[in-house]
């Protein structure tokens, strides 16, 4: 069965009624790869790409951004959030960016989910919705549970992201080539009202934030010594694996370099990017 709910209420109803075997598809850039590899068969498909509510981007009066889960990377790349913009532009090629969505990226909970890493650094919250219920919001940090596991229930959809306004942010990714590049490691940092957010991808089983390091930086000026201290702290905290893309050593070393670079950029940046 292939259903294409036209609105959110219908989508949530179908998600609830069609049971756990139903597969939700939006951009398809993850699910259909598995289908093509014959690692997945699709019997019941809920295509949520026509749900208008999921594609909205709303800017509230206090500057808060509410981003629909169905917003594509191509549209994320137009947002006035530099980390998001650059993360989105670093994903795949233009076709992938026209298809893949921020919601799909977050739900995949892949350690290399570039969009999720950018969102984490910006202290994003996610909205999880279920038919006939009030949606629940939670910080993205709480949403990720372990390798490719999240708090999303079988009858829920991730529907929106909320990001506070006023952030300045930066993004960096190391891969093996210069386009259509899967992260060997990626990172994002943000600053908002003297608070800092730091997140890295590919240094653990899921995208990770570093609240203790953020706490250490809170309210302080990013002088070179402090930046080094923060970068060292991050490098101590990460727990990367070795795989065919890179070794744990390299990822650990790069976590220091990436954090140092990003914080240095942030410190020297006069202009806000929101």
């Amino acid at each position, binding site marked *: 069965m*292939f259903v294409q709910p036209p609105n959110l209420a219908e989508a949530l109803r179908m998600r609830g009624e069609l049971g756990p075997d139903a597969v939700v598809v939006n951009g398809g850039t993850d699910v259909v790869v598995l289908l093509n590899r014959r690692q997945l068969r699709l019997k019941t498909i809920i295509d949520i*790409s026509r749900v208008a509510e999921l594609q909205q981007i709303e800017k509230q009066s206090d500057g808060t951004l509410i981003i629909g889960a169905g917003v594509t990377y191509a549209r994320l790349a137009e947002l006035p959030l530099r980390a998001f913009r650059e993360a989105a532009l670093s994903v795949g090629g*233009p076709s992938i960016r026209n*298809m893949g969505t921020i919601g799909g990226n977050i739900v995949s909970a892949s350690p290399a989910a570039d969009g999720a890493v950018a969102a984490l650094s910006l202290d994003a919250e996610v909205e999880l919705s279920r038919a006939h219920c009030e949606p629940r919001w939670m910080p993205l940090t709480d949403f990720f549970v372990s390798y490719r596991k999240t708090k999303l229930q079988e009858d829920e959809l991730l529907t929106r992201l909320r990001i506070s306004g006023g952030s300045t942010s930066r993004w960096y990714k190391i891969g093996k080539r210069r386009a*259509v590049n899967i992260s060997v490691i990626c990172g994002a940092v943000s600053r908002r009202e003297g608070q800092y957010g730091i997140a890295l991808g590919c240094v653990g089983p899921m995208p990770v934030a570093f609240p203790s390091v953020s706490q250490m930086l809170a309210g302080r000026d990013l002088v070179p010594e402090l930046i080094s201290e923060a970068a060292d702290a991050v490098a101590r905290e990460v727990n990367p694996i070795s795989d065919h893309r890179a070794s744990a050593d390299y990822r650990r070393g790069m976590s220091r370099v990436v954090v140092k670079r990003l914080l240095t950029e942030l410190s020297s940046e006069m202009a806000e990017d929101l």
Partner: protein
Amino acid sequence: MSADANKMLIKCKVNGQSVSCEIPVECTLLTFLREYLSLTGTKGACLEGECGSCTVLVNGKQVNSCLMLAGQVQGCEVLTVEGLADSDGRLDVLQERFLDAGAAQCGYCTPGLLMSARAFLKDNPKAGREELLTALEGNICRCTGYASIVEAVEKALAEVRT
């Protein structure tokens, strides 16, 4: 709705023609085009969105047809390489410049590149070299080293501008 739960009826426009066809629900747009409509100009080479050989335009936007389910183009307009030349067979400016520049060597990436370039020309007629490269970055070519492709698209871009 189809009688068989694993099948569905798809109606859309492909290269300007209305089509209606019963397909399995898990059929990708690539398979739909190649095997149900016999439009074999669109190629599949990696089936993971890494090479761009399968690029087509859906409602004017470039997508990897290998990663889109055919059901998702219900009611949409799809343009493939077969729809680039006009009905008299007159080639489009990109096709002509590809021929001039020798941008098709083995030719397997060519349909995908033409479609990416087509989307680019339509959306960014004022763009420069860097935007052009970004527009084509999702299309792997193993033969040309890309030089002739860049030349072809830049020349087409210059023509479109005038």
